[in-house]
């Protein structure tokens, strides 16, 4: 299986461990990721706030890069990139006038078709057969709160049941872990407004962490760099809002997958998580 890979800005620096672990896992599963040549930022939510045509054009360029390489499916780990690419692709497919208008803003690349866009979880859960996973280090006894956040709610063609997603649960079970009943699995983490409405945002995160802890989770499994930033990097600030501590490691589902597949801590970027997962892993007998 061969995919275009659009890491997006977060995975270059702040969420590098998602990039590392995704690549390591895909390498093990013989899923080939071909990074788009000199891709650009999709503009996330700000682009639509400033100018919808600008937003569409930024994504159209990235879609065109995949087309130029003859790659029909793009893997986009960041839900903002994912949403923007899909939205632009669909709008331009349906509206030839808009396509022309957008193509006029592009000096080198033009978009003819409409490459598909998928989240990594979608590729691993749907395109890859989970039964083929060779688990070397089962996550036995590990209670995991599977957190999907808003990515699965991203409209139009969600791959999983939007109201009761299962893909990550099934994956964690396959890895030998135990998903805990976590009713907040798709609730918003508030990441989109952390810079502009910090207190509202931290309260949403604190609520998620409280519920995960109450559900008996040893750790959270996430699939979005912004959710990870909120739950991991901002965890201590969220805890302060409730005058408590959580001490809940937050791992990308690809890091948990890599652990179960027997990959090493460097490859999975485990040392980069702000809430260290190492004492938990040691307690669970998962030597890395």
């Amino acid at each position: 299986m061969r995919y275009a890979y659009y890491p997006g800005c977060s995975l270059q620096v702040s969420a590098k461990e998602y990039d590392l672990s995704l690549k390591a896992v895909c390498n093990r599963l013989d899923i080939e990721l071909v990074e788009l040549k000199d891709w650009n930022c999709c503009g996330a939510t700000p682009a639509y706030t400033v100018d919808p045509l600008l937003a569409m054009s930024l994504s159209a360029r990235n879609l065109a890069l995949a087309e130029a390489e003859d790659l029909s499916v793009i893997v986009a780990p960041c839900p903002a990139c994912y949403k923007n690419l899909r939205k632009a692709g669909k709008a331009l497919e349906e509206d030839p006038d808009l396509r022309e208008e957008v193509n006029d803003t592009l000096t080198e690349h033009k978009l003819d078709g409409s490459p598909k866009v998928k989240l990594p979880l979608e590729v691993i859960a749907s395109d890859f057969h989970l039964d083929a996973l060779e688990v070397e280090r089962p996550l036995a006894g590990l209670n995991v709160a599977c957190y999907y956040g808003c990515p699965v709610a991203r409209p139009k063609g969600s791959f999983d049941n939007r109201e009761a997603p299962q893909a990550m649960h099934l994956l964690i079970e396959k890895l030998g872990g135990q998903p805990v009943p976590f009713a907040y699995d798709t609730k918003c983490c508030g990441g989109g407004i952390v810079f502009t409405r910090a207190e509202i945002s931290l309260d949403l995160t604190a609520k998620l962490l409280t519920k995960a802890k109450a559900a008996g989770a040893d750790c959270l499994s996430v699939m979005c760099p912004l959710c990870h930033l909120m739950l991991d990097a901002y965890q201590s600030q969220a805890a302060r809002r409730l005058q408590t501590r959580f001490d809940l490691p937050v791992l990308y589902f690809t890091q948990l997958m890599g652990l179960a597949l027997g990959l090493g801590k460097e490859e999975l970027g485990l040392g980069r998580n702000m809430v260290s997962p190492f004492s938990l892993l040691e307690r669970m007998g998962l030597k890395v």
Partner: protein
Amino acid sequence: MTVKLPPLLTEERLALHFMEQVGPDWQKLSTCMQCGTCTASCPVAHEMDYTPRQILHLIELGMEQEVLSSQSMWVCASCFHCTARCPRGIEIADVMAALRNQATAQGYKPDKAMTFSKAFMTVVNRYGRVFEPELIIRYGLGTNPLALMGQAPFGISMFLKNKLTLRPDRMEDVREVRAIFDRTEKGRSET
């Protein structure tokens, strides 16, 4: 919050000029049946002055000033649950983005979220990609420079984990992206 509705719909309101500004799908807005699924799904509705359902109603009634001077679209976290669940297929999160755009274009008091969005796009124009330290500094200087100091310990902790760098991750060739900015801005000023 209770809303005082206008006694009669005026011709101007029926002309739908305001609705047309809230996006290409504006015709769908009239199909809103006020079920409130959007508000029930919204993680931040309790922080808004008008809930998403009320915003849609106010737009339908043409109450432009009430909508554009509200906080609601600036509080929106863009989680898209409203859009995903709307039984009428109204793209409510996109309506919120369009309202942010309109409020700014029409000179309503700029929210710090607009300062953030503009700083974000300035950085993207410079490097073709986001460079967080510069984004945070630009945003801080445009809103509350003192608050930047409060963020310093967090920034340092991120830096120590290599989650922030001092050097931007830039595109090899940013020209095509800059051309997109030029061409779309030109298009906008011409209309």
